[in-house]
């Protein structure tokens, strides 16, 4: 399959290893990856902070760049949620029937990474090996917008050597929330403190998730507290094999 990668602006800039892992994983599974260089940002930060007008050109750009894709893979559930939940409403407001139609036609070809693997490609065992104690953080958008359910866990359970540890209060927000983490820094920090207690109670070596945004927030706290616990995007665990183990961490 020809898979177009929307890496997202923050993965592109801050977490290149996640993008490299997606490429390695999908190529290992026999697919061709395209990376259109004209992509930038889905507009989520602007939209959710109240700058909805400013997000409009980003939606237009995204639709323009990916309109001919066979399948778009996005390793971030919150960006997928932005596209799925808000693009149709935004396009409707523009009174541009062409744009609304383009969004409608594009949406069925948008996949969050684990959706692509399990739903589109029918895989649960991607041939990965990761001999570590791992706990899975279910991001809010993955749970309540994409309704991923146990898709990520099904993929993780098939990873060789992994010891999966249940995270208590797995459905509770970590406190990131985009600009919330800065605008309401103290409340966000209190939410993070509770999440870190839950993580530490599992004795995991790694925390994984389908969103690097949550992981950036969680790891920021874990690192500041010198806990020694690491984070890895799920793509990095799924890309990891016996001969090519995970290099470094996010």
């Amino acid at each position, binding site marked *: 399959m020809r898979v177009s990668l929307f890496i997202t602006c923050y993965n592109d*800039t801050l977490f290149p290893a996640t993008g490299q892992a997606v490429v390695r994983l999908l190529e290992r599974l026999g697919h061709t990856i395209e990376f259109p260089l004209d992509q930038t940002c889905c507009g989520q930060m602007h939209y959710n902070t109240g700058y909805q007008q400013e997000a409009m050109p980003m939606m237009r750009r995204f639709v323009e760049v990916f309109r001919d894709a066979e399948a778009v893979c996005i390793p971030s559930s919150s960006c997928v949620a932005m596209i799925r939940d808000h693009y149709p409403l935004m396009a409707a407001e523009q009174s541009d029937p062409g744009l609304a139609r383009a969004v409608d036609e594009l949406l069925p070809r948008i996949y969050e990474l684990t959706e692509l693997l399990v739903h589109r490609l029918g895989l649960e065992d991607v041939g990965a090996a990761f001999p570590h104690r791992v706990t899975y953080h279910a991001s809010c958008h993955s749970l309540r917008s994409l309704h991923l359910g146990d898709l990520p866990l099904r993929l993780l359970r098939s990873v060789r050597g992994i010891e999966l540890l249940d995270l208590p209060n797995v459905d509770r927000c970590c406190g990131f929330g985009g600009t919330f983490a800065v605008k309401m820094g103290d409340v966000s920090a209190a939410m993070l403190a509770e999440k870190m207690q839950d993580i530490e109670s599992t004795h995991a070596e790694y925390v994984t998730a389908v969103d690097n945004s949550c992981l950036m927030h969680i790891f920021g*706290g874990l690192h500041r507290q010198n806990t020694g616990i690491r984070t890895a995007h799920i793509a990095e665990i799924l890309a990891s094999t016996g001969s090519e183990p995970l290099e470094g961490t996010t």
Partner: protein
Amino acid sequence: MTIRVADAAESPSFQKAALPLLHDTQLRANVRHATDVIQRKRAAVVGETPDWQELREAASAIKTHTLRHLDSYLLQFEQACTAAGGHVHWASDADEANRIIADIVRQHGGKQLIKIKTMTSDETKLNDALEHEGIRAHETDLAELIIQLGHDKPSHIVVPALHKNRNQVREIFREQMHLPELGNQPEDLTAAARHYLREKFLSVNIGLCGANFLVAETGGVCIVESEGNGRMCLTLPDVLISLAGIEKIIPTFQDLEVFLQLLPRSATGERMNPYNSLWTGVRQNDGPKHFHVVLLDNGRTSVLADAEARQTLHCIRCAACLNTCPVYRQTGGHAYGSSYAGPVGAILTPQLLGMESAQSLPYASSLCGACYEVCPVKINIPEVLIHLRGRVVREQKSALDAEALAMKTAAAIFASRRRFEAAQRIGRLGQWPVVSNGWVKNLPGMLGNWTRVRDLRALPQQTFRGWWKQRVKDGKQADHA
């Protein structure tokens, strides 16, 4: 007209008000414990209701329909209530409602009234207004009594004193009821309250209540409660006054079938409330001789005018969104500065106030969506929060505001591949003053809110697109771009 929602217009921003609460370990333990208990109970009784999602759909549909025809349903209610011997009053704002109520009390020569818990009267600050008129209002709900005697403010829509534990309640009762020997067992505290309240029930002849539902078809009023104090207030006095927001209307008696399944399960985790009161007008030799309903607007019609946010008025005040909210869990209700705390307070308060005040409230959420998931009337709170953030930006923010400028700059960067790549390069090259050993530990300005408790890895030497371009150049990848 002056809209008032308790003290919300003068309250500090959420982030400022949250600080001392975050430092109050006793309060936070109380809030966590109480919300955990209610959530567990709710989950059990919701789990055993097979048609829960259908009930939510039905409630949402009834509310949507009612709000679309609110004008005619309100008139229908007035007609039916009047025909049954009640008096209906219309109040455009809090002051007018308080004035109407004070006038009724005076007409009947009263100096005191007994109240069953009503958040709407807290919204209008009725007790303070009556105090000015020389009228003393006695709260009879246990939690409201604790708040009133402790000179405190409610922190939760259903359980207003949830931020206090029983030792703290004992201290308030000891002092205010002059009971130096009072114990801290629930039985001790309820017995003390019962003794204190019984005297009020038997001596005060005017009662005040809110309304959970106003039935347009019959002119009836429905109130559900747990302690029986409501039943006392609703049946013993000669005069009964009900203060209700105009959104409390439902079209028919049969609609209660839906709401009386949703409300107790969502609010207190019960299949049914211990006391369900339903009455219509007045009857000879049975209950109050005079019955008044005060219908309150106080900003509700302007909420109704906003098509994207009017679902806010679906709210039946169950507080399930407060109990599940990870933000409320940390701060409790006082940070919201309003009678209405938690996620629904964050959307209701600024709208009632016309978006000019309480502008931090739409931002007091991580948009995690837990509130929408539990809402029995399916208010999409995260969507409304985002919509209201848009209104704050468009209607209230100066174009020269630092955040607005930063957002506009970011938008310009994302509008062009060339600018985006340049910004990535500039970030990488320009970050050295804040980077040490590969980590950012101290950022200036607003971003310092991030680094106060979290580290940030420095921008990597190569972006993903940089790696990709290199790969194409090295011939490992065909260039599709």
